[in-house]
């Protein structure tokens, strides 16, 4: 029925794919000429021609034929195609693409929607579906033992009934005991098989769920063809030779996000060609290769996706930027701005919208779009300028949904998943090695010493005296390698990680959360947080260093008993341990005897006052790092300023005293 109503249904899908493949292959041919690519292009064009003829799309078939004619003379050649031929190929393919689009929704496409703003084609969907189907098949296969088990169960059942019958009728078998034992052992075996099979089915279903979830996501590589094309077109218009290099195509993310970044990056790469890459003679004079290079790299770091566009051109025109900024009064008073400040003006200073800066610095408009997209996606954009060497524009956006392969680990009774791409190796730990590593915070690995962190210590603060980890998972993030000790590994999984919900502040080792098969949250670790935590752990010699241990105690200093008690009750209610001092002198003495996390001090006290106490503590190397909050009935701006001058981290006025506000300060400071 569907075919009868819509004979073009399948042609549209095929044609779209072929147009995409032709476009990518022509652009590749531009960079690496070779007979293989020509042959591949001929195949694509031929297939398209045949398919178009079948559905009577002569415009498309004719153009596919012309593509073949352009290519045929170059078949088997190692040399590059002449520029005119390349241009002709792209032009023909663009025309075909237009016809294909018109087939899809003739009415909509009459409007002039530029081709590059189209949503990237989810080209990898077929492969993903294949993998999903594989996973479903695997899950199905795991049910077979259960089916066999049913037969065994029936056999045991018959055995029991026969035995019962024999016992009832007095026809006892030769050895009742042996018969019962055999039945019992059959039952036990069956039980084990059932347990195994259910475990396996569960794991496979987990895999199916993960793959199905990741179908919602698209590989970053789907935008590369459009970016490559933009670079090609801009370079041709400018008469420059520019090479397009890409990396990180397999990183997956939501199609919406990718689409938006794509829109911004089309401007960014175009600007890099037009304003960044110098004309050939200038490049040669500067000792650079005649051909410029634009590199687009997509990388996932934790929950963030980084899109980088790097060119090897001339970099930003700092002198020009400085002139404009000076004219508009945007330069810092009394000093020369450093180059990065000038660059940042393009992004943040409001100069970016100015036409003049656009002309001088060149990249205003692209930067505007990049910044808008970054803001919309709650991300950021940054520029690194290397005068004479080129520039890098980077957009970093948080990923709300993130598909990843994970290693399931158990530690201290908690199950957590580690993103697989950070894992380098898993090493079984001998008992002694585990004890040494846990105590020293260091592990010998491949001839070097790497920081070691028992995961249980990071996940469960109360894991004192916990059994030594059995496996060390070696991981790399931020170009640093550390080892994390876990009790055991429980397999791998495909999962979609999402950010932690609001109202759930977590230790930095936690990167997000995924939903398991039962609908329960499962923690996803953050390799960057773990690397940082392991390095801190190794930095402290004593194993007692607890990363998520209860916060260090707070020392309350106040001459008023009522205030001391009130503050103590508030702080203890919030889970803090509190010591009390009735004077600043006493407090200084106590501060040296115990490792406090925070001082909460009154100002007006007999003897040394609060200002002096904070100032003394700041000057004392042992105490300088401990934040201090002043709590006073003085509310004048002068007092606040004085508090700030002596180094108080916050100032709370007693009259406006508010438990939540105080706790918010403390939480901020004591972490």
């Amino acid at each position: 029925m569907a075919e009868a109503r819509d004979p073009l249904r399948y042609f549209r899908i095929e044609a779209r794919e072929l147009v995409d493949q032709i476009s990518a292959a022509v652009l590749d041919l531009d960079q690496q000429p070779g007979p293989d690519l020509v042959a591949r292009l001929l195949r694509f064009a031929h297939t398209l021609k045949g398919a178009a003829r079948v559905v009577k799309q002569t415009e498309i078939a004719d153009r596919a034929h012309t593509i073949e004619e352009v290519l045929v003379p170059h078949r088997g050649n190692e040399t590059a195609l002449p520029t005119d031929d390349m241009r002709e190929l792209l032009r023909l393919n663009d025309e075909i693409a237009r016809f294909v689009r018109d087939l899809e929704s003739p009415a909509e496409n009459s409007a002039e929607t530029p081709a590059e703003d189209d949503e990237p084609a989810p080209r990898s969907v077929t492969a993903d579906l294949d993998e999903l189907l594989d996973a479903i098949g695997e899950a199905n296969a795991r049910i077979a033992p259960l089916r066999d088990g049913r037969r065994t169960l029936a056999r045991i059942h018959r055995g029991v009934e026969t035995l019962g019958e024999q016992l009832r009728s007095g026809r006892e078998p030769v050895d009742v005991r042996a018969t019962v034992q055999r039945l019992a052992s059959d039952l036990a075996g069956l039980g084990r098989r059932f347990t195994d099979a259910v475990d396996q089915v569960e794991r496979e279903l987990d895999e199916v769920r993960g793959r199905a979830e990741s179908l919602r996501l698209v590989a970053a590589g789907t935008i590369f063809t459009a970016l490559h094309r933009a670079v090609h077109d801009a370079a041709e218009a400018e008469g420059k030779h520019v090479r397009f290099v890409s990396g990180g195509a397999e990183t997956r993310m939501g199609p919406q996000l990718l689409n938006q970044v794509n829109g911004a990056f089309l401007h960014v790469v175009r600007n890099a060609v037009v304003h960044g890459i110098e004309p050939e003679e200038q490049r040669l004079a500067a000792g650079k290769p005649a051909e410029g290079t634009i590199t687009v790299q997509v990388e996932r770091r934790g929950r963030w996706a980084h899109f980088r566009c790097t060119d090897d051109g001339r970099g930003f025109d700092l002198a020009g930027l400085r002139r404009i900024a000076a004219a508009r009064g945007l330069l810092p008073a009394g000093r020369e701005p450093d180059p990065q400040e000038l660059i940042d003006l393009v992004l943040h200073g409001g100069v970016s919208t100015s036409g003049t800066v656009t002309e001088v610095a060149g990249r205003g408009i692209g930067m505007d779009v990049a910044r808008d997209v970054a803001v919309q996606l709650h991300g950021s954009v940054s520029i690194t300028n290397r005068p004479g060497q080129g520039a890098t524009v980077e957009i970093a956006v948080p990923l709300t949904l993130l598909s990843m392969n994970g290693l399931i680990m158990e530690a201290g009774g908690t199950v957590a998943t580690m993103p697989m791409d950070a894992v380098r190796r898993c090493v079984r730990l001998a008992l002694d090695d585990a004890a040494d590593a846990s105590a020293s915070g260091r592990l010998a690995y491949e001839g070097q010493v790497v920081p070691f962190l028992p995961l249980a210590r990071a996940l469960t603060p109360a894991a004192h005296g916990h059994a030594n980890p059995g496996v060390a998972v070696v991981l790399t993030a931020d170009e640093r390698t550390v080892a994390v000790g876990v009790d055991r590994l429980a397999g791998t999984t495909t999962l979609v990680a999402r950010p932690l919900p609001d109202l759930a502040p977590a230790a930095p080792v936690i990167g997000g959360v995924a939903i398991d098969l039962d609908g329960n949250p499962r923690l996803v670790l953050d390799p960057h947080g773990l690397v940082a935590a392991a390095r801190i752990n190794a930095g402290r010699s004593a194993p007692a260093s607890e990363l998520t241990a209860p916060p260090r105690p707070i020392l309350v200093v106040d001459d008023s008993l009522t205030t001391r008690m009130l503050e103590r009750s508030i702080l203890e209610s919030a889970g803090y341990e509190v010591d009390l001092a009735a004077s600043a002198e006493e407090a200084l003495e106590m501060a040296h005897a115990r490792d406090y996390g925070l001082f909460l001090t009154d100002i007006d006290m007999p003897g040394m006052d609060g200002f002096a106490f904070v100032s003394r503590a700041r000057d004392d190397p042992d105490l300088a790092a401990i934040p201090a909050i002043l709590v006073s009935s003085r509310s004048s701006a002068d007092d606040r300023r004085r508090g700030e001058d002596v180094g108080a981290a916050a100032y709370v006025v007693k009259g406006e005293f508010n438990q939540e506000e105080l706790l918010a300060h403390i939480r901020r400071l004591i972490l």
Partner: protein
Amino acid sequence: MTVSVADRIARLRLDFDRSFAEPVRRHDEEHVELLAVHAGGRPYALRLAQTAGLHPDRPVTPLPGPLAALLGLAGFAGTVIPVYDLSALLGHPGPDRPRWMVLAVGAPPLGLAFHELDGHVRVEAEAIVDEEPAEGQRGCLRGMVRLDGAPRLIVDVPATRALVHALAGHIQVTEETRR
């Protein structure tokens, strides 16, 4: 005998007619629905209208972090919800894991866990002793109700939510008090 039957009929008719003349009872205004609970060994009451669901034995995944009152995360139909220990929020944390959880009204999603559910009761509005929002401590408690002869403090869910927001760093700290 016949007279008394006629009298009876007349009385019944009068009662029947009179019943229409009485004003309709307004349940919602005169009664308040409460959940009687125990948190950390102490009795409290929660207004049912301030909750969005009651769940026993919900698996909670512990979340390591700075807040002792945050028990962890629970999954509800694909949504991940932070669960706080009510007794810890009320200032008397205990070692036992709470068994019950109510979802607080409002956004973002928030679960409050307590140890025992004593029951669901409807009390007359007058039975609740209201209290001006008090200063200082016990910020989550508003008013009191007498149930089975014993007084119970009423946990105000929106106030508890406000405390959680503050603890989780959702508070606006004025620029002036910030360094």
